[in-house]
């Protein structure tokens, strides 16, 4: 469980900007939560505060004892792979930094299998498509066995088909129990994606970023590709869209 109480984030520059204001949010165990909002509304900032990458200017962040600090892993929009490392070496990076190569190196192979990356271990990033690069980015996040996975518009620069396929796969992987991930926090500006994936969707209004609404997605948890064309799906989409003005 992760809880934010009255969190505010102010950036001090030439002019101070209030990126986030009065954020109260609780992420339950085993929840898939999406944060949507237009560009520059502070959703990335919110994700980084949830993950403890940046500290709030005021307010507090509490995590329950068994959601250990350090069990957060990020996936960014740009997969940020190191061009001089093969896919496998990129995924090994967190282990090298945490000094756990010997214990966890064996896990790389199964993470590669789970993400459909088998056979690409020795490819360099420049030899991989955008979708494959982002799979490597996700593999790198999973290798350190996080309990909370934080994704910041991970599929924003991919084409529609690849994005949908990766959405399906992410969901399958999360539910399959093949990973240690319990919570997923997913930042996106794509409403379809948010509805398809989430248990709840947080709608942020822009400048300063405030929570406008938290919507529970009461679709069946078994989400098939078909669900995207259902009436309920569409009405949820419309509802979110109307709040994002």
């Amino acid at each position, binding site marked *: 469980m992760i809880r934010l109480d009255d969190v505010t984030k102010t950036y001090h520059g030439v002019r101070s900007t209030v990126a986030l204001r009065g954020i109260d949010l609780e992420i339950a165990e085993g929840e898939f939560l999406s944060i949507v909002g237009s560009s520059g509304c502070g959703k990335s900032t919110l994700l980084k505060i949830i993950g403890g990458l940046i500290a709030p200017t005021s307010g507090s962040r509490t995590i329950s004892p068994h959601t250990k600090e350090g069990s957060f892993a990020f996936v*960014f929009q740009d997969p*940020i792979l*190191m*061009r*001089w490392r093969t896919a496998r070496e990129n995924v090994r*990076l967190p282990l090298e*930094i945490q000094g756990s190569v010997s214990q966890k190196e064996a896990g790389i192979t199964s993470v590669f299998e789970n993400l459909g990356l088998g056979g690409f271990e020795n490819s360099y990033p*420049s*030899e991989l498509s955008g979708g494959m690069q982002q799979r490597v980015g996700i593999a790198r996040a999973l290798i*350190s066995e996080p309990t909370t996975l934080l994704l910041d518009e991970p599929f924003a620069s991919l084409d529609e088909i690849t994005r949908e396929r990766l959405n399906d796969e992410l969901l399958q992987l999360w539910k399959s129990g093949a990973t240690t991930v319990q919570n997923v926090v997913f930042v996106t500006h794509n409403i379809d994606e948010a509805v398809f994936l989430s248990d709840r969707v947080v709608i942020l209004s822009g400048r300063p970023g405030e929570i406008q609404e938290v919507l529970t997605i009461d679709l069946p948890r078994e989400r098939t590709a078909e669900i995207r064309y259902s009436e309920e799906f569409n009405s949820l989409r419309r509802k979110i869209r109307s709040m994002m003005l």
Partner: protein
Amino acid sequence: MNSTLKQLLPPILAPLVGLALWTLIVRVFSIPSYLLPSPQSVLTSISTSYPTLLYHASITFAEALAGFVLCIIVGILFSISFQLWPITRQSLYPYLVATRIAPIIAVAPFLLLWLGNGFFAKAATAAVVSTFFIVINLTKGFDEVSNGARELLRSLSATRFQILMKLQIPNSVPYFFSGIKAALATSIAGAVAAEFISSNSGLGHLILSNYYYFRTAEMFGALLVLIAGGVLIFGAISMIERIFFSHYSMRRES
């Protein structure tokens, strides 16, 4: 095949045309050989005196390469300390430019005075002019890592030292190679400049001593050996970079 031939032809033909023109000018205007010897007489001088040329070349290139290695070591140490201890960067980086602005020919006498007339003073002169390029390029390579990559490493709780080792140093490899290519040229220049001031061996000494006797063909011979040696080392560095460090280069990804 045809297109590679088309690409290779101009760089092969250009010097041949140049040599033909050179020969022609020397013949047509009957230029005395102390002013401008014909290419043939330069070749003859090289072929008759190549043991001497090689001896002096070995001295100059030993000085230049010692300076080159020294500047790489010193340059790396400075660059890394600038990253790990910002105070060193704040206090020293601005003055690094001074080592580049000061003409080496004016600095060399001091080094010769303090370090003696020998090999080490020449190597030191070569190193002093060249360190700048290593530090400037490495610092650029260390600095120009994306904010995203920094953020990724911070999200993994990497230490300052780990960020340097895992991200900044590998990122700087192509910058490092540009740096050492520039440093190679100035190392050779530094060694020759120091030889001009005081020496009794080396290609710089050879050029200067022949100059006093108007033995221009011999001067040309020494100059050509100097260029050929430099180009050879330059080519070797480029080859090492291409073969062993190709994945570090900044090609557009995907």
